[in-house]
């Protein structure tokens, strides 16, 4: 009992969020525990980013409760970041703003996200994917207990996406931190997630990736295309496991 609650990093209880005239989040509850990856999927405008902001305390919930473990160290990778061009900031300095880190860890993380060469560039010059990698590096640098990632794969190149899947799995294994993830990339979702939560203002369905993909709500929410894509994917994994041909 104590152990179980000990490991609870983040808990949302019946959280709603009302923006002026629209209800953006409708009574959502979720929990993230140490060593667990929870992925939120849902169509555009479903309220995923809003939900993350509520979880992080960046928005005040209109109803319900958000609980974070006391003193929780959070690494956050936002969906968008705009830095003013009058503010001179290299990628290196941006990372060091995250606070003091172990000397070796910065180099290691930069290698992991593949950003060694751009480290002395101005942030306002970074390309879309480079900025994304930088944000990931910053989130990781803080040695977080809870990692909150808003579409981490967006804008990242093919090579980097593959690395990202591996990286997330590694992090969870090695550091045992909890991960709360938003993604449209079903490959990522299927490959590295313990729990999936389909959001469309309210929670449509949740559970393990396999179980979710088979629910009717999922099909309704994502349409046949997604369903086919997921089917292909899970089929593919089975397939390769069974008989490697080609």
């Amino acid at each position, binding site marked *: 009992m104590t152990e179980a609650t000990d490991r609870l990093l983040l808990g949302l209880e019946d959280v709603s969020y009302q923006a002026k005239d629209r209800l953006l989040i409708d009574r959502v509850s979720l929990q993230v525990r140490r060593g667990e990856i929870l992925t939120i999927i849902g169509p555009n405008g479903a309220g995923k980013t809003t939900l993350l902001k509520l979880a992080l*305390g960046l928005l005040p919930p209109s109803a319900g409760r958000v609980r974070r473990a006391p003193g929780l160290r959070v690494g956050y990778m936002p969906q968008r970041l705009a830095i003013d061009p009058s503010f001179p900031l290299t990628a290196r300095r941006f990372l060091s703003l995250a606070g003091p880190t172990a000397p070796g860890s910065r180099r290691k993380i930069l290698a992991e996200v593949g950003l060694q060469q751009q480290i002395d560039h101005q942030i306002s010059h970074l390309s879309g994917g480079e900025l994304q990698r930088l944000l990931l590096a910053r989130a990781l640098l803080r040695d977080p207990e809870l990692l909150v990632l808003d579409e981490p794969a967006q804008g990242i190149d093919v090579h980097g996406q593959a690395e990202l899947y591996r990286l997330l799995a590694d992090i969870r294994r090695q550091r045992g931190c909890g991960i709360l993830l938003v993604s449209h990339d079903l490959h990522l979702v299927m490959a590295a997630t313990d729990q999936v939560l389909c959001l469309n203002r309210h929670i449509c369905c949740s559970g393990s990736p396999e179980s979710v993909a088979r629910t009717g709500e999922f099909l309704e929410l994502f349409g046949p295309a997604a369903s086919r894509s997921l089917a292909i994917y899970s089929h593919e994994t089975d397939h390769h496991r069974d008989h490697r041909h080609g």
Partner: protein
Amino acid sequence: MDDFMLRALAGGLGVALVAGPYGSFIVWRRLAYFGDTLAHAALLGIAGALFFDLAPLAGVTSVCLLLALLLFLLQRQGRLAGDTLLGILSHTALALGLVVLSFMEEVRVDLLGYLFGDILATSGRDLWWIYLGGGTALLLLWRLWRPLLCLTADEDLARVEGVRVDLVKALFLLMLALVVAILMKIVGLILVTALLIIPAAAARQWTASPESMGAAASVIGMLAVAGGLTASWHWDTPAGPSIVLTAGGLFLLSLLRRRR
């Protein structure tokens, strides 16, 4: 060289030193007209002090601090940029001051005289204020440096990483208000606001990190002070404007270098 020139030089260099890092934040956070706003509001402070029979300095200081708080609250509200908010505050405060004064016909102080110092009139006591006060202000800024940079880069990230965003922002504005108010009284409004903005903007063209921009702004400001005072000495031009013009010239130079 005469004593007053040496004191002006010492004072000016001190002001430029302090203005460098503060000015950098002013440029980043769109507060270029903070000084003008304070000056406008100071009129209200003086009027209020006269009305309640307080020392003018007390009135000015409290209005300046109040203004910083108001700006902080308006900034939290979102949407509108720093310059718009400052414009609103500055004009409203000035108008209020003028209206209040119109009810106090017998007032005969030179209101602007309270605000405008002259760098050539820097006294030994002023130097203490500049160096002790300025030193303290720099020290405080140094303590707040990392959280301030963090929230200047991105407020959401800063908040998630445990920076007490509101507290830091409010403290910064209060510090800025005090620094500007004190320096304005000593060396004059135009000189202070110009030394805050122009060297920092020039430094932006040369530097790639916030620290180097702050330091370069200090250095450029000090060059402008030295150059301006020399010009004032040689050609008998007014000292404050000469310094500002020199700073403007350095800014132009910085633009040229960037073109390449």
